């Protein structure tokens, strides 16, 4: 990715180089435009309360998009992230209900939830990387399996979360909404992960797997680790859904899977692997959220909202791909 900086001869514009360093920039511009438009049509939406509620609702999708990004780095895809999210959601809720709603049981349940997410991710990794099945169909099959597990844990939606859990998620700490602490911790975590060897390895596998293998990288193990990381972040996303909806639902994540892919693409990641940023995916998730709210604020009749959202997201996806490719060329 940084090779080209050594040969500036054929690389003219500095804007181009800037895009190359920060591939999420186009997405960020779209995000700012959307924020301004939201502010024009509904000034309250860009207030502290408006932004807080946007983050609160879309934090789960941001985390799920990050999860998707780590497998997309390696040129893989995970169509089971939504099912993992649902499974962790019902496991966490069920454990909290059984152990009581105190602080210790809540943390215990969350630890168990992370373990479940990790296990699901490792299963996906083994199926795709070790058994060498095609990622799209294999993770679709595991998603059916995980959904079955979630239905086994909680056959019908509705078990409530302990009050302490959703009060904390939706509340404030020292006058600052709790979700912003989550965002801060997340930012630190993502920054730390970006500097790890694993992320570099994932990107090099996605860029050219045979070459990565020939330089001695354990390609299979790296891809499994990518899926494991994806499972962990899906579990984190599940915590946010649990905090936001305050209840368990074995099918809650199903619809989010394809949005996580869309968010990663919006953020400038290439589905063919080897190129992308998690920041971009977070921005991509916010773009989806802002498109949804803008469509509402400009007063689209309710039955037309889905169509306008669909068209706007398709348009944003196309812009994301086109600008991303221009930056890489």
């Amino acid at each position, binding site marked *: 990715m940084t090779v080209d900086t050594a040969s500036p001869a054929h690389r003219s514009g500095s804007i181009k180089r800037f895009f190359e360093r920060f591939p999420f920039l186009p997405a960020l511009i779209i995000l700012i435009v959307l924020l301004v438009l939201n502010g024009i049509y509904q000034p309250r939406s860009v207030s502290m309360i408006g932004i807080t509620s946007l983050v609160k609702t879309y934090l789960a999708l941001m985390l799920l998009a990050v999860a998707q990004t780590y497998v997309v780095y390696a040129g893989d895809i995970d169509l089971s992230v939504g099912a993992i999210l649902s499974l962790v959601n019902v496991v966490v809720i069920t454990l909290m209900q059984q152990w009581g709603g105190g602080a210790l049981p809540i943390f215990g349940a969350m630890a168990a939830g992370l373990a479940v997410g990790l296990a699901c991710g490792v299963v996906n990794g083994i*199926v795709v990387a070790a058994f060498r099945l095609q990622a799209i169909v294999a993770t679709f099959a595991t998603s059916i399996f995980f959904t079955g597990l979630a239905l086994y844990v909680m056959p019908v939606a509705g078990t409530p979360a302990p009050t302490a859990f959703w009060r904390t998620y939706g509340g404030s700490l020292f006058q600052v909404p709790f979700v912003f602490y989550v965002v801060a911790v997340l930012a630190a975590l993502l920054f730390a992960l970006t500097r790890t060897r694993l992320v570099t390895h994932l990107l090099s596998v996605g860029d050219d797997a045979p070459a990565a293998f020939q330089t001695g990288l354990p390609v299979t193990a790296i891809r499994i680790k990518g899926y494991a990381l994806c499972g962990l972040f899906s579990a984190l996303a599940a915590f946010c859904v649990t905090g936001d909806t305050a209840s368990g639902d074995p099918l809650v994540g199903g619809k989010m899977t394809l949005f996580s892919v869309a968010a990663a693409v919006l953020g400038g990641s290439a589905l063919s692997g080897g190129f992308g940023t998690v920041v971009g995916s977070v921005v991509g998730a916010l773009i989806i959220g802002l498109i949804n709210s803008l469509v509402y604020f400009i007063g689209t009749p309710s039955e037309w909202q889905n169509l306008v959202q669909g068209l706007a997201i398709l348009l944003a996806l196309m812009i994301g791909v086109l600008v991303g490719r221009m930056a890489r060329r």
Partner: protein
Amino acid sequence: MMSAVAFFKQPLVVALALIAALLLLGETLSPGFASGQQILRLLIVAALLGIVAAGQNLVILGGREGIDLSVGGVVSLSAIIAGNLMDGSNAGIPVAILGCIAAGAFFGLANGLGVTLLRIPPLVMTLGMLGVLQGLLVVIRQGIPSGKAAPGLSEFVTQPVLFGLPGIIWLWIAIGLFMAFLLKRTVFGQRIYAIGSNEHSAFMAGVPVGVIRVSLFVLSGVFAAIAGICLLGYSGSSFANVGEQYMLPSIIAVVFGGTPLAGGKGGYTGTMAGAVLLVILQSILTTVNIDESGRQMVFGATLLVLMLFYGRGKALRT
């Protein structure tokens, strides 16, 4: 002459053997499962999936990560358009068929142009299109009542027409023959394989790569539209997002039929067997007495095991 091992490794042979095994299993689990009447019912359901999978198959064969996630949306859209245009009367059938095929071709064309002219990856383009289609469905459904199937259409799909087989089975056989002819006997078909296995050399050899890829997406839309009309005939009236259940299963049917997602090789005969295999598997799971959670777990696990029989990727170590 191929060796016995090579013979049994052919996807079509694997699929047919698995179908026979599953029928046997179904018959032992619940006697009457493999009766003529039941098998006919299974074939009708498989035909619906198989027709969607025909278009999916073409798009996948064309390579460059070809995939069509919007087929489910087109199936739903077509079912609702057909229901409204015929609204329970046989006289409306021709208009309905034309309207649906036009709609399917339109969305296929949009997908194809996005993929070729703008070079948007097919997964992204068709994913975005799926969102548009789902939105469009909401608009249509709230604007006009969802119509009814014409009696003639329902009869065609569910009642015997010729030699005891319903019209939809004959339609599926015809599509199978059409696909085999198209892929094996026409220049167009050979060019599909050419762009699927090596787009660059196909381009250098003068193959109009873009035109062919666009037409594959158009055909995929048209096949999904045809499946939507048949689905309306099968269920009598269209309901919310009927087509969604076909999106990923159509891809799995193609994979079970021996066409790898990388494209360039495979064919439709295998896909037909793949669709039957998938439908029988689902049907067995509904006859055995387990609850929904167990059914899903067994279904997911079985799909994974079955996938091990098919196109595993190449090992990096050679």
